[in-house]
Structure formats: C-alpha cells, structure tokens
C-alpha cells in the first residue's frame, strides 16, 4: 500500500497542525508529509479542498452482538462505522449476555478484528453492575484485564445511590471512566416524550428533564463527597440533553471535578416539536427524549464554549419491524454512525457554529483523552489513523447506502454539505459509499 494524497488540508489541533501538503502513506504508516513527487508505484488522490484529520472515534455505540443480531452485528456495525468516517468505536455492554463477564469483552474484541480486516478499533465498555441491573458490582478488575475501556450500565442507570457510591470508589482504582446514562426511572417511568407543551398536545406519557438532572446531581454530589478519598474520579455523562444538566456540568467542572460530557447529533438538531410535525415518527423516539428548542440552544452554546467535550452518536439500531409500529410500542433509539460526521460538518462547521478544529477535538482528541487512549498524531513515522473528509461535497442521506443492518434514522432524506470520504487505520483503507 502506497497512497499519496496531493494537496490535502492536514489538520490536527492537538499538534497545532493545519497545513496544505502532500501526504504519503506506506503500509499503514505516514511515510512523508510535504511536497511529494508522484510516482507510478503510488495510488494518487487529488485532495485539493479535502481534509485529512486524526481518526474519529464514536465513544457511544450499540453493536447489539451478542444477543440482538437481528438489529446489528459486530461486523455490520463496524462497516457502518467505517462508512461513516470512524476508525474507532466504543460499544455499550447492554447485549445479551451483558458485558459483565470477561468472555463477552473478549468475544467482542475477537469478532471486531475479523471485520474489514480489523480496520476499525473496537473498545468494549464493561458493565458497572451484573446484568446491568444496578444491584451488585460486575467483576471490574477482570473486565479491565480483558480490555474494558470504560464502565457503563447504559440503557439502564444505576438507581441505588449506595451502589453508585461503591461503583465510584471501586472503579477509581482502575483509572477508567464511568459513563452514566442519567435517568431516574421513578421519574421517567413509562415516559415517551419530553414533558412540556408538546407531550401535552401529543398525549404522550411525559418524561421530565429532571429525571436526567436529578441523577446527574446525585452523581456529582457523590463524587464531590468522595473526592478527598478516591484516587481520581473520571465521570462522563452520556448523551447530555437538557439546559439544567449543562448548568450542573458547568458548575461542577468549575468546582474542579474531573467530569466530561458527550452530546448526540440528534439532541443538537431535533426537538420534541418534531414528533408533532412528523405525526409520531418512531425514529424520533430516543432516550433521553428530544428536548425543547431552549434546551437545544443550551447544548449548542455548551458545544461552542467547551462545556461539552465530545460528540457521540448513541448508534442504537433496531429492526424495521420493531420501529414500524405505534409510538409507545417502538423501542427507543436511532442509528447514527453513518450520519454523525455529515451532520456535524453540514449543520455546525459549514454554518459557522463551530470550526473544523473544534469538530476534530469533539470527535477525536477529547474522546480519546476521556478514555485514556493515546492521541493520534499526524507526523512522519507515525501509524496512519486518519479520517478523510470532503467539507464541500453535497449529498442526500440515503438509507440504501447504509452499511448498518438497521435503517432507523430520522435524517434519511436530509440534504447535507460535507461528507466522510473514508478512513485509513491499521494498514487498511476504506472508502465510504454513502
């Protein structure tokens, strides 16, 4: 493999790098950056007005295997990730069986190396509690040894405060992040839509935003209380969605807690009103539920000012027969691996809301830092772990081009400007067919 990208804009904010140059990749390594003469042995690509970035990571993905292979498999999930511009994924433990046992972590790692020649790095997230039931701690040390990158009961949320306290204490010994899906189930109940004007109009069982905020506040207070005692707290909020949560995050960050947050493209781009506009489109049924325009404003502001650290898709595939139903019966969640990069380029970078540098921080530099992964460098002699982007290409999201086994996306048909072109990682190249 000898690939030469001519005239590419190479950006890596972590290295303060933003230059237009040629870049030669040989056998998965960055051979040279600068002015490079073409050679008949090289595959040459004109990358004028195109971008080469450190590889993107989606730190919140449901690959569904083992247990729910009718929704997604490790293979199809990896293909979707590669197609969407990601060189790395973190998969959540709510499989069947759950990732509360080292064998499940090992299974996911083994399977992931088989898909697309192992081009995408898959980092499994271990369960905090056995069967993600929130009662007893999972075998944390064994899971770390097997390769768990972080811990979460995502899909569920540890309800019992005493169990959560012990999880914070115990996991602090391993320097791994705890990723919390913040939901007080006694408040969310059977809730289907953000409690407010639109849930009232739609007659959808209300799901109040305080369900997220109360658990977040509980966790932040637990961490403040434990801070003098534990070695280091590493707390990450999954799919933050409300203004109140942003205020809490800011306040406790300012107070010196080591906490981070991710936001999904759908919480940034859609509101509860869209459920009304779409006549109960089940592809707008997500957990946490889509919030109000005011919450979206707060999320976008927090994205700009750095309060939010990462963007993650919460890729949640469901089979058509599961989603094509009435609103209450349909499961929560939408896919996002193949739309996230395009949506952020189109709706945030190209609209001048964030810079391309910021986007790279949110999708590569910060999530890797949160997870304790080595930063990606774009320098001669380094391994090539790259995401290739065309920030100007206009395209329409077409589900026929998805590699994911599921098609449950509310963004199908959206006209976007900016697209992932492909990835290079682990000595392999993948060109996106989106």
């Amino acid at each position, binding site marked *: 493999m000898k690939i030469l990208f001519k005239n590419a804009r190479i950006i890596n904010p972590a290295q303060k790098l933003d230059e237009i140059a040629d870049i030669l990749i040989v056998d998965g390594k960055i051979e040279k950056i600068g002015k490079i003469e073409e050679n008949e042995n090289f595959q040459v690509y004109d990358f004028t007005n195109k971008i080469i970035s450190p590889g993107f990571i989606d730190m919140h993905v449901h690959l569904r295997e083992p247990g729910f292979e009718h929704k997604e498999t490790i293979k199809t999930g990896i293909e979707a990730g590669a197609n969407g511009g990601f060189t790395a994924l973190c998969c959540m433990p709510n499989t069947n069986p759950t990732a509360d046992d080292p064998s499940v972590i090992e299974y996911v790692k083994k399977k992931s190396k088989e898909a697309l020649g192992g081009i995408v790095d898959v980092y499994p997230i271990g369960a905090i509690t056995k069967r993600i039931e929130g009662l007893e701690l999972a075998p944390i040390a064994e899971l770390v040894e097997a390769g768990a990158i972080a811990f979460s009961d995502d899909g569920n949320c540890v309800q019992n405060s005493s169990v959560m306290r012990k999880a914070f204490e115990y996991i602090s010994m391993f320097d791994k992040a705890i990723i919390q899906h913040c939901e007080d189930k006694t408040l969310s109940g059977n809730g*289907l839509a953000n409690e407010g004007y639109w849930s009232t*109009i739609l007659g959808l069982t209300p799901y109040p935003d305080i369900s997220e905020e109360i658990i977040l506040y509980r966790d932040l207070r637990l961490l403040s209380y434990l801070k003098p005692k534990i070695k280091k707290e590493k707390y990450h909020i999954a799919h933050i969605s409300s203004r109140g949560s942003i205020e809490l995050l800011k306040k406790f960050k300012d107070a010196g807690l080591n906490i981070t947050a991710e936001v999904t493209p759908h919480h940034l781009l859609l509101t509860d009103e869209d459920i009304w506009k779409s006549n*109960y489109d089940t592809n707008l049924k997500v957990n946490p539920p889509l919030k109000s325009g005011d919450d979206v404003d707060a999320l976008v502001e927090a994205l700009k000012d750095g309060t939010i650290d990462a963007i993650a898709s919460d890729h949640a595939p469901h089979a058509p027969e599961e989603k094509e139903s*009435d609103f*209450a019966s349909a499961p929560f969640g939408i896919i996002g691996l193949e739309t996230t990069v395009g949506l952020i380029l189109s709706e945030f970078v190209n609209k001048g809301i964030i810079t391309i540098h910021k986007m790279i921080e949110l999708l590569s530099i910060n999530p890797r830092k949160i997870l304790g992964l080595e930063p990606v460098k774009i320098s001669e002699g380094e391994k090539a772990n790259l995401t290739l982007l065309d920030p100007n290409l206009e395209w329409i999201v077409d589900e026929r081009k998805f590699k994911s086994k599921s098609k449950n996306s509310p963004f199908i048909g959206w006209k976007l400007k900016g697209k992932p072109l492909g990835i290079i990682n682990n000595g392999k190249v993948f060109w996106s067919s989106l």
Partner: protein
Amino acid sequence: MPLKSRHLLGLEGMPKEDIELILNTAVSFKEVLERPIKKVPTLQGKTIVNLFFESSTRTRISFELAERRLSADVVNFTTAGSSIAKGETFKDTIKNIEAMKIDMVVIRHSSSGAAHFLTKIIDANVINAGDGTHEHPTQALLDIFTIREKLGKVQGINVCIVGDILHSRVARSNIFGLKTLGANVSVCGPETLIPKEIEKLGVEIYHNIEDVIPKVDVLNVLRLQLERQNSAFIPSLQEYHKHFGITREKLEKATKPILIMHPGPINRGVELSSDVADSEHSVILEQVTNGVAVRMAILYLLGTMGN
C-alpha cells in the same frame, strides 16, 4: 363542500368550517334516527372495519350502529384471541386487513398516535375512535353537538372539564374543538392530573370545583380511572369525591342551570353522585344518542369523499 382531510385523527388544527359541517350534517342524521325506519343507503357497498385494540362498549356499539344505519358492510376486530395475541405485529395485522379491500377503518388503540401510524401504512380513510391519552375526536364532536343543541350555540359558552386531564383524550379533543368554536374552556382537577403547559392551549386551570360552578354553563365530568390511586396521583377515591366529585350540594352554588355531561362509563359516587347523574341537568344519555348521529355524519362525509 367536503372536509379538508380524508381522515379524522383529531380536532387539533381542524378548521372551524369542518367542525361545523360535521355538526350540521349530524343534525340531519339525528332526524333520520327519529324515523321509524332508521336506515339510509348512503354507504351501501362500502366496507368498514372497526379495529378495537382496547376494550370499549359504548364507542364500538355506537360506531357499529352508525355504520349499519348507513348500510355499510361492517367487520369487527378486537384483540382478544386475535392474530395480535398470537404475536403478529400491529403493522402486519393492518396490512392483512387492508388486503381484504376495505374502505374505512375505525381504530381504537391504547397508544397515542396509533391512528396517525395507520394513515402512514394504509390507503383507507381512518377514523380515530380514541388513541391512548391523545384524542377522541368523535366523543368531543358529540359533546359539542350536545352543547350546541341544548344551549343553541357554542361561541362564548363557558365549559369546564373536570377530572383527570393528564390522561384524558376526551379532554384534549374537547379543548381543541371548543376553543376553535370560540367557547371559554377551563379545566378543574388535582394538580397531579393537570398536564404541564396546558395553559398554553388557552384554558384556565382550577383546583377547587366550588370556584368553577358559579361561572360555567357546562360541566364535562371525566371518568376517574380507579387505578390512579395506586400510582399516587390521588390519595383516595373518597378524597377525590369530596373535593372534585359533582354533587347536588356543590351544584347549589350555581347561578344558572348547568349542563352535566360525562363521556361514560360513570363511576357513581366518585366523579358524580348518583342524584346528579340522574338529575334533570344531566344530558349523559342524550350524549349517547347524539353519538350515533355524529358518527353517521363523520362516516358519511369521509365515506363519500371524492365520489
């Protein structure tokens, strides 16, 4: 002049002219119902399916009568012992029924938006006979029809809807329809059963029924689901009855005769005392009669569209 939509999913956003067209048409059908022979050939050759995924006596019978009196062919589908109980998906059930060449579907379902979902997967006209806690437009139309018949108009009439507003599809449809026709609408119930931001629909909120009674022309009293006590919405049925139940004693505060309405079935001694339910002010049974006429009007207007 036809209706604007080929489905009746709800009264939210339904134009005033359409509501009035349905009410005026229902007047004619009510006359038909007074005749010795109550059947007209209007929907002869049309097949209507009543899909009841949630139990119902009154609404189902009312629809069925209305359909038969318009000479439609009627098929009833209820979930007990059906393919749904055997594990077939909602969508497959619907597609199978549609494949039998039907013209109209009347659907009741426990999930809000179920009727909207139906319009996305089939071509037949869809009538919402109650979807979850969202809307029950035919009930509201028969309520409004009854108010108009009894009081001569709807514009400017003061209507209070009493009870569990949060879970009530009847309340939502009544609010939308009554507001469109210019009535003054208020709601009265325990705060736990008042949905958030309902004031944005232009309704006044009361928590004391005795404050409401002197101000209204109509009390539309909702059924209190008995399980609300278990889920801590109210402390007890007794306490509910004491504070929100409509009794003859409380009605003494009225400054003018008040029309007492109820969508049924009544929990006597909870939301209504028996003497009020059976009093001269109660129009509860007339609502039931009007229900058939209003549903005939809707079936006729939708079933003859484009003919």
